């Protein structure tokens, strides 16, 4: 922790960063995302087992973009989000300095994005057993059973949009649900509109989701929404061999074009 604080202080003094995104202690259980704007605030930064939030989502905040030179601390999921967002050309107007703490509790300051890629590729996560089990369970359901399973879960959705808010890949300045002329998706949080919302969300994230699981973790009604995108990722990886958040120049399967593609229809 001391190393993290010292290094960040050094970065501020050198002028490498003008804003640092990390974690601080809070009065409620869990670490609170923290924005450090000066050397004096560096002592707020902490690291412990509660630091699970995917901080990459904050890189879209206007206040963060304005800071231009941004330091960010995060776990593998955060690093993967950064790589995926770089491959979607999202950080053309900010300079990123990326840090992590590895499994041996050692602090790492990455000198370049190539180093982040190397680290991520060496520590590439798998789905958890629990996630695999749930996806398998859904796979073996009949079409009708699957429909009922999701309908039952989505009927409880309150449309708080926390799943959207915590997702680093949901960065549209105006979301489809915010359009009211025409209104593509009903505002009322009832089963049919809820299903429209979650289907739309999953489709937009297909092959872009990095499986950080934040949306499922934070859902206040406990809907495992992350399974939808996790399953789509499995399918895309099977069909196209794509791995999201694996490199900063990946692109994503549903939005890339290769003139040498073996499928003739694409030419």
């Amino acid at each position: 922790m001391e190393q993290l604080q010292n290094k960040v202080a050094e970065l501020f003094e050198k002028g490498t960063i003008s804003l640092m995104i990390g974690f601080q202690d809070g009065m409620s259980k869990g670490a609170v995302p923290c924005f450090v704007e000066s050397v004096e605030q560096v002592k707020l930064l902490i690291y412990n087992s509660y630091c699970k939030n995917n901080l990459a989502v904050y890189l879209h905040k206007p206040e963060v973009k304005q800071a231009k030179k941004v330091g960010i601390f995060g776990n593998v999921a955060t690093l993967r989000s950064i790589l995926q967002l770089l491959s979607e050309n999202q950080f053309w107007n900010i300079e990123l300095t990326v840090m992590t703490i590895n499994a041996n509790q050692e602090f790492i300051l990455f000198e370049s994005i190539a180093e982040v890629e190397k680290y991520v590729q060496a520590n590439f996560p798998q789905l958890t057993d629990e996630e695999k089990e749930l996806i398998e369970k859904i796979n073996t359901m009949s079409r009708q059973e699957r429909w009922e399973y999701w309908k039952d879960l989505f009927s409880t959705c309150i449309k708080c949009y926390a799943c959207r808010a915590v997702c680093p890949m949901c960065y549209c300045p105006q979301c489809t649900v915010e359009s009211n002329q025409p209104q593509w998706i009903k505002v009322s949080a009832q089963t049919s509109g809820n299903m429209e919302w979650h289907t739309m969300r999953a489709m937009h994230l297909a092959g872009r989701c990095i499986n950080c699981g934040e949306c499922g973790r934070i859902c206040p009604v406990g809907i495992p929404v992350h399974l939808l995108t996790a399953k789509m990722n499995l399918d895309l990886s099977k069909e196209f061999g794509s791995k999201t958040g694996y490199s900063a120049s990946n692109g994503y399967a549903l939005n890339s074009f290769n003139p040498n593609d073996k499928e003739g229809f694409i030419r």
Partner: protein
Amino acid sequence: METKLLQSSDIPKLFDNLIKSGKVIIAPITKKSGKVFFERISSYDQVEKDYIQTQFSAKSVVFPKVEELFTYKKTDTGIEITDTLSQIPEVVVWGLRPCDSSAFDYISEFFLKENPDAYFARRKELLTLITISCPKADDACFCTSVELNPGSTAGSDILLTQMGNEYYAEIITEKGKAVVESSSDLFTATEPKTKDEFLAKITYQFSLEEIKERIKTAYDNAQWKHESMGCYGCGACAFACPTCTCFDIQDESDGDEGSRKRCWDACGLSLFTKHNSGHNPRKNQTERRRQRLMHKFKYSVENLGIVSCVGCGRCIRVCPAHLNIFENILNVTKE
């Protein structure tokens, strides 16, 4: 106020009587996700007995997440409108906590004071609240800081406090009396008792008088930014909150028929204040979070004379960013 005793073993009988009365019974149940929600139940077996707090408040019985105000249908002769007001049922809520029932006092002021809302008024009229005092609490609970306590009777029709194998019942209103009378064989008279030893101990976080005074000048405090930068901008806190009352009216149509609906809305969502021109007077999340917190401790006091935070701690438990309302309030009102 009448006080009675009810044996724990008689509670299923009380439930049977309530269910037989034909009223809709709403009680805490544990869902597959492991979280506890208020839902309609048909037998006492379904009711969760061991919970600190439900995930969401009981406000949805008077202010549903989606309330159909009326439906319409175009016919050969004109337009047929069905008023949904007459379809509102009699409801009994069982097992809400004292913080939740006290919140009904605030939302009633909000919906009924100036331009009484017919739907709310009807739901409230047909509603009975049977509250259960809190035997335990967690570190998100802070009702004592907002001048309530785990045995407050505010807003309840009956307050039950478990004392060993029996429940001590405080019968506060006529509606409460009606419930007792319909199961009079289950209740026995008793002298008023002290509840303290049976109530949860809640950590005292702040002096409400001090906060109310200091927040008057907190609007421009630079600390708001640090306290709210982590806010993701979702509506989880507002939807879980027992006193958040913002809504959005929506018309949903399908060909020649449709309905008008009142849906929950939240000041934390950027769309809430966004104008058609694209201009948003609350331009960032810091301003939106400040609005929510200042409403609880300042604006509602100015408008209705009530602090509209009941210290239930739900916003703290559901916040994806682990933001803590009393910590934020303390930090922006520091001298």
